[in-house]
């Protein structure tokens, strides 16, 4: 990169950029040809399409700030109409939903399940009682069967998710090894369990997070693998249709990208290794030098142009030998990845609306994920979304784009008929079993936290733990911090408050 390119890019900002939007040729073009808008829009490249979306949305946003008398000008009305045409083309609807925010712990669990990783919690986020039990742990003292996870209200919150259910055995073994008193489970918080899971799966002490589900099997990657399993041919065909500077994407690029998606569930272009599909002079010479006896290849029998077996390509990639079969252009440079979509994961039912479903685990279900071109994801799907607080500050309103068809799995472009892959990933018996189990495991977070706090009193007394009044207040504050989101939760808060007062009074009596 030439020096100062970044500075030049932002020269306008430094010179106080002026509003140019209304004078742009794009603006004129949109509004003078609006009668044939959809067809004109379809033939633009994605970057121009995104520019159009932004321009139209900016016009609407400007109108929002006007007084009611000034609203409804021609351009705003037209912009609203044209945006609706884009939504129709993309098969999305722009809806407003009322929702109650999830508790922070629930939000964290949804993220952890999706990525299969757990972040280490800071020491001050762990509960006093957990730290007490951890300090007094006696390794291997209790059998793993003593750790009844389902006796823990906090674990029941985890247990709602399949990924966490799948690690229960490992967790019990770790608890046995660490020797934490089994009673601790009854009072441990969600953060305490995060720490236990982190410790059970960390690679080294200094790591900040740990994979509790192997990366290749986390939901995100599994989703990509399933797309390739059920709609791989369609996915490949869509890639072949794409053009860069009037040229189709090189077949070797398409094949290598699909291989990566299929085998690893990874769609990150940065990690893609593009390999040759047929032997050439360079590869044969390289193979002759490299001893691949273990793979049973007789290089002398290979000829230029013969197809490279897929198993051999996989072997070379897996064993960091892909350099030898890496595809190169006529000048010996690695092939360009231009034209490939950078796919990102989009939740169709927003995470914030997860509380409205049958179970919060549903937010990570296969049919709730759409792999979207990153430009559309950021520049369209998220660009138009917004969240507003209602009068009482508890209820919130979300305005966002929702896919009309739950089978929408991959979105390469705006044209729902030509750029989108539809596929139902919730038909397998395995998924149906998971869904039934999820429904059985559903719990109310606030109810669980209430039980956990009740347990605290009992455990403090049973183990005669010297616990200050300020700790009890701290616990109350923590619970209070969790948003009180509906009448039920307000009632819970009242009950907890009553309970805490009782504990404080009891302790006062004991102290006397």
């Amino acid at each position: 990169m030439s020096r100062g390119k970044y500075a030049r890019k932002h020269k306008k900002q430094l010179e106080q950029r002026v509003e140019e939007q209304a004078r742009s040729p794009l603006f004129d073009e949109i509004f003078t040809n609006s009668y044939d808008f959809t067809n004109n829009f379809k033939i633009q490249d994605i970057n121009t399409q995104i520019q159009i979306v932004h321009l139209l949305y900016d016009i609407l946003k400007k109108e929002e700030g006007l007084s009611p008398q000034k609203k409804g000008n021609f351009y705003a009305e037209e912009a609203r109409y044209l945006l609706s045409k884009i939504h129709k083309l993309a098969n999305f609807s722009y809806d407003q939903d009322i929702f109650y925010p999830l508790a922070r712990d629930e939000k964290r669990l949804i993220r952890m399940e999706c990525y299969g990783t757990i972040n280490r919690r800071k020491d001050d986020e762990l509960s006093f009682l957990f730290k007490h039990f951890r300090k007094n742990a006696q390794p291997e003292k209790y059998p793993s069967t003593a750790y009844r996870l389902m006796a823990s209200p906090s674990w029941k919150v985890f247990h709602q998710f399949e990924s966490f259910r799948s690690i229960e055995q490992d967790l019990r073994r770790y608890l046995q090894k660490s020797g934490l008193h089994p009673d601790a489970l009854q009072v441990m918080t969600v953060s305490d369990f995060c720490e236990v899971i982190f410790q059970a799966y960390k690679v080294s002490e200094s790591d900040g997070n740990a994979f509790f589900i192997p990366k290749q099997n986390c939901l995100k990657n599994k989703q990509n693998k399933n797309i390739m399993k059920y709609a791989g041919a369609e996915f490949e065909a869509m890639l072949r249709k794409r053009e860069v500077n009037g040229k189709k994407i090189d077949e070797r690029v398409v094949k290598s990208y699909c291989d990566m998606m299929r085998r690893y569930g990874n769609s990150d272009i940065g990690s893609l290794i593009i390999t040759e599909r047929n032997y050439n002079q360079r590869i044969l010479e390289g193979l002759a030098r490299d001893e691949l006896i273990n793979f049973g290849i007789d290089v002398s029998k290979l000829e230029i142009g013969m197809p490279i077996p897929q198993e051999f390509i996989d072997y070379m990639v897996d064993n960091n030998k892909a350099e030898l079969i890496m595809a190169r252009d006529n000048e010996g440079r690695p092939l360009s990845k231009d034209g490939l979509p950078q796919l990102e994961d989009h939740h169709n039912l927003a995470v914030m609306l997860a509380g409205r479903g049958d179970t919060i685990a549903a937010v990570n279900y296969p049919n709730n994920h759409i792999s979207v071109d990153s430009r559309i994801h950021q520049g369209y799907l998220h660009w138009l979304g917004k969240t507003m607080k209602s009068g009482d500050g508890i209820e919130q309103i979300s305005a966002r784009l929702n896919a009309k068809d739950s089978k929408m799995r991959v979105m390469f472009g705006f044209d729902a008929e030509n750029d989108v892959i539809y596929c139902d990933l919730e038909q397998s018996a395995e998924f149906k079993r998971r869904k039934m189990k999820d429904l059985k495991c559903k719990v109310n977070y606030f109810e669980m936290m209430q039980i956990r706090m009740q347990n605290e009193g009992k455990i403090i007394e049973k183990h005669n733990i010297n616990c200050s009044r300020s700790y009890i207040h701290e616990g109350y504050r923590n619970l209070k911090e969790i948003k009180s989101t509906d009448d039920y939760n307000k009632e819970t808060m009242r009950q907890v408050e009553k309970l805490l007062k009782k504990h404080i009074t009891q302790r006062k009596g004991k102290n006397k």
Partner: protein
Amino acid sequence: MKFVELIERNNFAKGEDLESEALIVAQKVLCNMGLDMIPRSYADFLRKYNGIKYDGIYLFGATVDDDMDIIDKNEQMDKPENTILLGYNEFDLLCYDFKSKQYKIVDRSDFEVLDTYEENEIDEALTAIFNAQ
């Protein structure tokens, strides 16, 4: 393990090497936008990795790559008040709150603060937003 060591093991796309001039421009434009300077600890990180992107996770830098340009992203994306946006993943934003001088992991939809880190805890903050190991 430090975050930088962690990502060295992986082949993530990163921005071009940071030029001093680019950092100065970024600082000036952000200030002109009514924001604040990029925190020192994050600027130190940019000297090693001037923006990273991997599978829908982004950390911004003073880079010509539009996906990771800290100025463009702070202009374009919604974020909580008094913060500079430094990165995001599918669920959350990584912001620096220049009033409280803290890094914050914030829910993308309702801006609820999920985690808070002091400036010297930048490793933890970056690890939290960048879930890939």
